[in-house]
């Protein structure tokens, strides 16, 4: 089985790379959003899946990236690719600013602080109207670039998954997981827990910032409520939980399954889809908190690097 995995992965990547040639407009946009969710879920997993610190406002980095890139594109005429990378940088700066104080908080307090910060940011963006367009939003000059954005999103998703692999298989990753299992023990073993949590936090902000910028370009219009919604944070968390948190492929699996489900099935039940989402959250938390891969790992004694 295991020796088949790498060839399989290569085939999937090649097919995805060639897909825009044959794919429909809808198909390309569907995949592009799927890549975005993979990048988001994977990033949340880096901080919360590995260290156990629940970032309940992770979408703040997405919003930060979206607004950084949006402003650079709309006001300064930057090319979108460069602006999106700047969005990633903006998100890291934000993570640095809030990481220093917040990562000292433990347990539910960290989660609430992140939740609060996301709301503060949302209101702040609405307030600085001159720069951000305020509550009425920010429009970007029209541009049809689904296919290039497809590749940029795809590359980001691949890169952050690669990053997850490198981290989980490294000593750095081990230190993070030690913090998750027992922070006091980690500290007494000589791990500078604050420093490693901060590193993980910064790394987890990069991809949301970049895909935030790309999403802003893709949609050509952003507003505070569309880029800082709590429900998006919850969605990425549920994706990770569903696939298997703390694993490399769990967030990918969770994003693919949940996003497909969302698009294929929920679109038919417009009035019920939020309710169904609530039911899915409750089911996942109660029945499979370790996720699909977590269950498989336990059952078949698989390595944690899956």
């Amino acid at each position, binding site marked *: 089985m295991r020796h088949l995995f790498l060839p399989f992965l290569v085939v999937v990547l090649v097919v995805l790379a060639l897909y825009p040639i044959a794919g429909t407009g809808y198909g390309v946009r569907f995949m592009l959003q799927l890549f975005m969710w993979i990048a988001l879920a994977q990033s949340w997993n880096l901080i919360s899946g590995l260290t156990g610190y629940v970032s309940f406002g992770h979408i703040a980095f997405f919003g930060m990236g979206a607004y950084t890139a949006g402003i650079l594109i709309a006001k300064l005429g930057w090319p979108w690719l460069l602006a999106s990378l700047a969005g990633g940088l903006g998100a890291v700066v934000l993570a640095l600013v809030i990481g220093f104080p917040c990562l000292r908080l433990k347990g539910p307090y960290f*989660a609430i*602080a992140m939740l*609060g910060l996301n709301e*503060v940011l949302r209101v702040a963006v609405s307030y600085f109207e001159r720069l951000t367009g305020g509550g009425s939003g920010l429009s970007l000059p029209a541009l049809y670039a689904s296919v290039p954005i497809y590749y940029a999103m795809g590359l980001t998703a691949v890169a952050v998954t690669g990053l997850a692999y490198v981290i989980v298989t490294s000593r750095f990753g081990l230190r993070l997981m030690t913090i998750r299992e027992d922070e006091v023990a980690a500290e007494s073993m000589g791990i500078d827990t604050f420093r490693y949590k901060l590193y993980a936090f910064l790394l987890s902000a990069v991809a949301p910032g970049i895909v935030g910028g790309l999403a802003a370009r893709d949609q050509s219009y952003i507003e505070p409520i569309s880029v800082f919604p709590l429900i998006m944070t*919850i969605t990425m968390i549920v994706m990770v939980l569903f696939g298997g948190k703390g694993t490399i492929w769990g967030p990918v699996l969770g994003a693919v399954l949940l996003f497909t489900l969302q698009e294929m099935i929920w679109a038919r039940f417009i009035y019920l889809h939020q309710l169904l989402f609530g039911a899915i959250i409750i089911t996942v938390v*109660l029945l499979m908190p370790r996720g699909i891969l977590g269950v498989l790992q336990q059952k078949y004694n698989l390595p944690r690097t899956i």
Partner: protein
Amino acid sequence: MLGQVVISGLLAGALYSMVALGLGLIFGVMRVLNVSHGPLLMLGAYTTFWLFHWLGLNPYLSLVVSMPVLFVVGMVLQRLFVSRVVDAPELSTLLLTFGISIALVNLAQLAFTADLRSVEYLTGSFVLGPFAFSKSRVIACAFAIVITAAAFLFLKATRLGKAIRAVSQSREVAQVCGIDVGRIHLLAFGIGSALAAAGGTLVAVMVAIQPEMGQVYTFKSFLVIVLGGAGNYPGALLGGLLLGLIEQISSLFLTTQVNEAVAYVLLVLVLLVRPTGLLRGRAS
């Protein structure tokens, strides 16, 4: 001007204290942050609205219906869902109660539609010297004080209340003393939900009723128990009054839109500067 603001702040604060005491009770006893607290309040408000709409029942009288109904709803939620994750990491409890929260909001949307409803019962104001206060706020405050006092009396003076306080101090020791911890959890969630319902009934007369009206109260209650110190029940009172005051005072200087962020900024600041709360609560 300032006197008016201070009194309005205290009026609003008493209501916050009562609602947050419900959240604080659940958090203190189980270490579960109940994200669905606001939606439970919303259900309380709808109970009052329908009783008023169909039966013409006095909205304040409907407290005797909304509180017991939500007490039962709370216990059912605890039995079916929350009891399974009491000992799980905070991720599970936050997500689970969030799931319950969106399920409740959307059930309400399906059942009651998203139309704005209102209970037109008490309008006008009391005028007292230079001050004027809307009648519904004064009465809501009075009820909130009575209900909060009753809750405290229950916690202080009854054996069951003592058991609740014991479990929130140390579950293990309480268990060793022969307290049925599962039952106390059930009771705490029931009482917490009933306090939220009381809040819903009292605000039903003041604000528009719609399925998403509750979320704001969830956040505000978080802030109140953080302000007062988690697990510190008198702290919740102080926290509620403080929040009411701060919101009213800041509304003098800030636009409505920015004022909305005051609670969040305060939440983050207090967490950073003094995570154990203003009165010393229990750090996690």
